[in-house]
């Protein structure tokens, strides 16, 4: 153990009974730098002000109680070291504030029922097997159970909900935690409602296509659940396995996007809209009545862009290929050339000890 050091915790206080606005309060703590921000907060409570409120219990990143934002980044207080937090602190003070995207009740405590648990309830979070259970256990592939273990590892701490950028824009978005929970059933071979679940999540305008692929949830998740990866797997299963083409054009947008990158290497924006509306096809986007209607609806935006000089007819129509675009295509060939669909799962690693930590791809057994 290292020597104890002094740290300053700048904590966001809010007491709903005081009638005062939320404010920052500085506290000095003295602890081994390997100890956690939670240990620091507990020292404040123990020595100085026991009215400071934070949910916490296990101190070991298991119970999921102590989600906060530390120097603006969503995390569990119990598995963020003081020394690490100090490195990202500005002016030497470690800021601790309640999680985002959820209403604050008191100090560092937010109302998870109002947001997180409501969304969990939304995804029908229980197994729906077909008929009577077998006499013994369900016989299912070993890999399938290890595969869903990554989403079972979710401790419902809400840290991803706090960090989610889509939720900031669309509070109705089902969100990373609940969608990861949804994958836990979609990926479970015992569940008999896979297609219904996927159709529901694809057709919901706040469902799987509402994720903007920003990686924030993957970055902050303390349990390596990688919620965004689970959302992407929901999309792949919805489209590749069940051919679900949602009415929100989520499927078309993603397919259009990927095809454009394969062809040009960078995003050809003028092509994206018609392809999105045309279930990935630029042609269909321009001839199918529904797609045309939607395109026309977006016309004023395009015209405004033209007028403001954000779009020029030349740029819109003639999109240059990325120099070395062949290399982009090679990536596509490499990935699409696999017999099985590639999925990343931290619980599944190969035997080869030289592979990078937990990042080896494996067939998901879904194809």
């Amino acid at each position, binding site marked *: 153990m290292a020597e104890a050091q002094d740290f300053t915790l700048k904590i966001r206080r809010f007491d*709903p009974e005081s009638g005062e606005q939320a404010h920052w309060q500085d506290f000095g703590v003295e602890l081994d730098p390997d100890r956690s921000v939670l240990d620091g907060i507990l020292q404040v409570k123990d020595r100085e*002000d026991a009215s400071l409120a934070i949910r916490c219990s296990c101190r070991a990143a298991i119970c999921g109680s102590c989600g906060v934002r530390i120097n603006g980044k969503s995390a569990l207080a119990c598995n963020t070291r003081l020394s690490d937090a100090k490195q990202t602190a500005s002016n030497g003070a470690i800021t601790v504030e309640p999680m985002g995207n959820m209403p604050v009740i008191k100090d560092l405590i937010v109302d998870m029922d109002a947001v997180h648990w409501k969304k969990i309830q939304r995804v029908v979070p229980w197994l729906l097997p077909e008929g009577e259970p077998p006499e013994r256990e369900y016989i*299912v592939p070993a890999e399938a159970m*290890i595969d869903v273990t990554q989403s079972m590892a979710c401790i419902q701490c809400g840290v991803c909900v706090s960090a989610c950028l889509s939720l900031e824009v669309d509070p109705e978005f089902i969100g990373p935690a609940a969608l990861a929970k949804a994958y836990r059933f979609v990926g479970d071979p015992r569940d008999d409602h896979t297609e219904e679940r996927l159709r529901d999540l694809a057709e919901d305008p706040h469902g799987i296509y509402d994720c903007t692929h920003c990686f924030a949830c993957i970055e902050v998740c303390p349990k390596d659940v990688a919620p965004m990866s689970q959302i992407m797997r929901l999309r792949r299963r919805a489209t590749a396995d069940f051919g679900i083409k949602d009415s929100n054009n989520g499927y078309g947008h993603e397919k259009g996007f990927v095809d454009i990158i394969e062809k040009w290497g960078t995003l050809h924006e003028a092509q994206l809209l018609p392809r999105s509306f045309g279930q990935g096809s630029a042609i269909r986007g321009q001839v199918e009545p529904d797609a045309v209607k939607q395109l026309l609806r977006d016309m004023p935006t395009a015209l405004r862009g033209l007028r403001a000089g954000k779009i020029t007819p030349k740029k819109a129509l003639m999109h240059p290929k990325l120099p070395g675009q062949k290399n982009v295509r090679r990536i596509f060939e490499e990935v699409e050339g696999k017999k099985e669909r590639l999925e990343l799962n931290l619980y599944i690693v190969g035997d080869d000890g030289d592979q990078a930590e937990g990042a080896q791809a494996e067939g998901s057994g879904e194809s």
Partner: protein
Amino acid sequence: MPHHDVLVIGAGLAGQRAALSAAEQGANVGIISKVHPVRSHSNAAQGGINAALDPEDSWESHAFDTVKGSDYLGDQDAIEIMCREAPDELLELEHLGVTFHRDETGHLGKRAFGGASAARTYYVADITGQAILHVLYEQLMKHDVVHRYEEWFTTALVQDEEGKVSGAVTRNIRDGSMELFAAKSVILATGGNGQVFNPTTNALVCTGDAIAMAYRIGAPLMDMEMIQYHPTTLAGLGLLITEGARGEGAHLYNADGERFMEKYAPNKMELASRDVVSRAEQTEINEGRGFPDGTVALDITVVPRKRIHEALREILNVGRDFAGVDITKEPIHIKPGNHYAMGGVKSDTDGLTSIPGLYAVGECACVSVHGGNRLGANSLLDTLIFGRRAGAHAGKRSKGSPMPQPSRASLDDEEARIRAIFDRERSGRRVSEIKAELGATMDEKCSVYRDEEGLREALEVVTRLRQEAKVATVDDRGTIFNQDLLGALELQFMIDNAETILVSAIERKESRGAQYRTDFPDRNDDDWLKHITVQPNGDGEAPEIEYSEVTMTQWEPEERTY
């Protein structure tokens, strides 16, 4: 006044299982928890759940291992029930959706665990408790017939004039309101009391609330001296490293590089029962063969990397985040640490305590299936089997019986008690200071090795702390999320737990299971093959001690070697 046929207090595995099973009987069920149910400490059970499901295995073998593990203090009728019902319970969990590990044929896979003569531990990586807890909570979300009171703190149990339990007084943590609940039956399921010790693997919520509340209304507590020290916890923080690591093949070494379990348990080695392994480690450390930080080494590097990733991933994270150790590359330093209370509120195989209408299940109860020492992966089983049985019993019993009308006087009493806490002069010690002294004292004097002198010293400290706790300073006078007030109430619960542990440990003048008395180093079946129970004896008086027989069915006590 909220009223329920069955009111469950505590929403970990035992509580949730009891609530679901009472609801299956058609009872109107309420479940109260001071934390959101998925925050409960059942989460921390990593390794798995035992069941003799394999046709090659037998429940008798599981039961014998449990009896032997208990150092013959476990009640064999209860152990038989638990082990016989284990396979069906496991299958039911599997059917509900628990993602148990599969073998290559797609059937349930199992791992080896300590003190067991066969591999019969079923698991979900090393998050078994979490996986089961979350699946049961899924069922609570599905069946909204169970009314959930999440973040409500129970302060006291209420009895009618005949002594029958008729409800409970609670505080809604979110708004500070006090509420009297009426219930035909109350099932206690608040878990263990590890916070009485420091360090401990237990979460901050494990403050022995129900043990103290039941004790205060006269329910006898049993086997309280039996406190398990887990062999593999991180020094300082006390965090748990699952027994599953040894189940997967990890070895223990002392600082001389010696695989010391050869000396203590030549047959089972690292997979001897927990009391045996913890004592072996403590002996190595005490005799100077530990590392300078008072630890020995757990070497998990012998387990294949692929296997660590799929089966011990949580430990990989704990090592990385809390000890700065990559367990796939180097040994991790560990020591015995407070982990589990075998004792608790004396209850029968349907969870009924000595007080009519009051049940206790899970770690706060003592059936007693664990006796002097609990086997790894038997605690999840205990919570589920007896949670289910108590829920069913209470659910059936509620039919046709009238809803009691608990007296509002009990609510007034509790409100007055809380007002008095707010009215305290701010001159007393801080709650945190008292708690810290309590934890350090218990860990020093009442851990792996004990003697009368040390235990009596500890009891003196606890007696003083009881007085200090009555006037401890509380900073927060607010209503919304007043955690300071709850801490003051919990501290008093913890002191009741500590006192009854110490009194029982002083009383048992022998060494059995987790209780090792250096002044009485042998097991003494002639005098002490019996349970010690304690009851309150009026304010300021030492608890009253009684004995009860150990139920024997088919296994006579034998010498215990591993």
